[in-house]
């Protein structure tokens, strides 16, 4: 990179401009990534946090996709799943979004009904009690252990405040499954039901056989997120924006290096005439692009992390961790380098003969 370093310094203005574009796009992508993760956490963290590998939904009629809101499984379903080979545990989970109230304060919450002794329940949950997630407690005016909250028609005692679980942009309230079954409308059938069955299955489990036995449709946890109505639309559009930003940056960088390579093709011809091998010149040019990208993406990521730290203190859902910040930077560098590689490829075609005589 003998010439490349010196060109970077000599044409500072041009490279600084291009670097600034990389910084800004990386910053934007970084913030978008943090926001995407933050929104996703508010949407699905209670589901992804379940100690389970799969969820079994009530089989939807007529080939429809499974859905949390339309799913209702009977006790026979989780009994059937429990008996399946390879299934270490099968436990019912009831999910219902409703209003909770403590004194004057009301808040929309998602009530997760689980068996208190079943391993899905947070510590301290007992019949007649609830465990509030921190956000639920905060929205209910700082409810504390020992206080009471009204959920639907039930008065329940707060056993504890713990965790950050959220579902469909509402904080989670954990309740006994039996209490959960009584929250809803008076018309609920007396049969013991839940929304889904959380399965902990190993690789040997025959899931299709389980579905047939239990009358359910099984999904992995990751697949099941698509069954949360808002998640797919929200996540999809944010990922699309991110994808466009990546594509734009690759194109802009490709365009910049195309123009730059054409501008310096006379220098390339001279270097070739002097005996520079084409791989030497390609390495030089690509190294230059990677230096520019790494510097730009590094600075952009640092800014995104700094801004993210400010934001995550506030009410905006924003996740600031290594993957959300570093993955976009790595993708930026990789895609930018690909764009630059396509552009600097034209070095191969430069004829050293043009350096000679008056042909130049």
């Amino acid at each position, binding site marked *: 990179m*003998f010439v490349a370093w*010196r060109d970077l310094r*000599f044409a500072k203005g041009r490279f600084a401009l291009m670097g600034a574009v990389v910084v800004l796009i990386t910053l934007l992508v970084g913030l978008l990534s943090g926001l995407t993760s933050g929104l996703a956490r508010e949407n699905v963290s209670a589901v992804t946090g379940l100690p389970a590998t799969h969820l079994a939904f009530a089989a939807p009629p007529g080939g429809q996709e499974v859905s949390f809101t339309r799913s209702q499984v009977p006790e026979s379903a989780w009994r059937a799943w429990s008996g399946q080979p390879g299934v270490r545990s099968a436990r019912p989970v009831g999910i219902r979004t409703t209003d909770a109230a403590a004194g004057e304060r009301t808040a929309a919450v998602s009530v997760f009904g689980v068996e208190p002794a079943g391993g899905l329940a947070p510590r301290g949950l007992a019949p007649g009690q609830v465990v509030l997630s921190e956000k639920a407690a905060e929205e209910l005016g700082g409810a504390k252990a020992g206080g009471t909250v009204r959920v639907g028609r039930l008065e329940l005692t707060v056993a504890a405040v713990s965790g950050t679980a959220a579902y469909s942009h509402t904080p989670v309230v954990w309740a006994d499954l039996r209490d959960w079954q009584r929250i809803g409308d008076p018309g609920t059938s007396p049969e013991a039901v839940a929304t889904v069955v959380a399965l902990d299955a190993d690789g040997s489990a025959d899931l299709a056989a389980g579905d047939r036995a239990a009358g359910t449709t099984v999904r992995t946890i990751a697949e099941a997120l698509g069954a949360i109505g808002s998640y797919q639309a929200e996540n999809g559009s944010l990922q699309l924006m991110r994808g466009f930003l990546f594509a734009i940056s690759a194109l802009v960088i490709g365009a910049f290096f195309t123009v730059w390579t054409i501008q310096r093709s006379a*220098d390339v011809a*001279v270097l070739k*005439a002097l005996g520079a091998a084409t791989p030497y010149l390609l390495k030089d040019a690509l190294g230059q692009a990677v230096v520019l990208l790494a510097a730009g993406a590094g600075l952009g990521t640092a800014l995104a992390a700094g801004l993210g730290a400010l934001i995550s203190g506030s009410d905006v859902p924003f996740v600031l961790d290594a993957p959300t910040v570093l993955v976009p930077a790595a993708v930026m560098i990789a895609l930018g380098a690909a764009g630059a590689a396509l552009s600097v490829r034209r070095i191969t075609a430069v004829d050293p003969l043009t*350096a*000679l005589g008056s*042909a130049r």
Partner: protein
Amino acid sequence: MTLLLHDVTLTYPDGESRLTALDAVGLEVPAGTLTAVVGPSGSGKSSLLAVAATLVTPDSGRVVVAGRDTAPMSAAQKSALRREHIGIVFQQPNLLASLTAAEQLQVMAHLSGRPARQLRRRALELLDAVGLADKADKRPHQLSGGQRQRVNIARALMNEPTVLLVDEPTSALDHERGAAVLDLLVTLTRERSTATVLVTHDRAHLERMDRTVTMTDGRLADPVAAA
């Protein structure tokens, strides 16, 4: 023989037909001697240098540089041959804008995989030899035309070439500076024992050359013999 062209013919595509730039050209240049090629514009002088520099492959004939036949060489091998054995002094100085005078020379070492930093001393010695000791850290835009041309010459010598090819080095210079550059080339050829080919249309200093040949329409002739 350090540089040998034997029966070299070169044509360029020219519309439907082909234009003959070199027509059965033969030339031998021993080490430590300087051969001048004179002739009108468009007669094929630069083409002769291009063939000798392995920048273009002739249609037929043999090109031997530093004892090696270039015909069977790959593009990469020709690049290596240019780096190690051929010095080219371009008609335009063709310096790289971002490099200082010393770096223009150091990059030659870098191309050959030698540590450029350690060869700075040699670069400074060469710049001293062309009278630019005090300009080592100047970039091309800070140098005059004559100074740039001298950097161009010093660069061609950086990798100690056995063959030195010079294309109209004085065309951009006034008479006095042109004479100085020619003096320099004569001295360097003797000192460093290069086989030098000098293309020029400036007939003023031909008596300083070991040999002068004339190019007309792609054919070489010895003017002394012709006279």
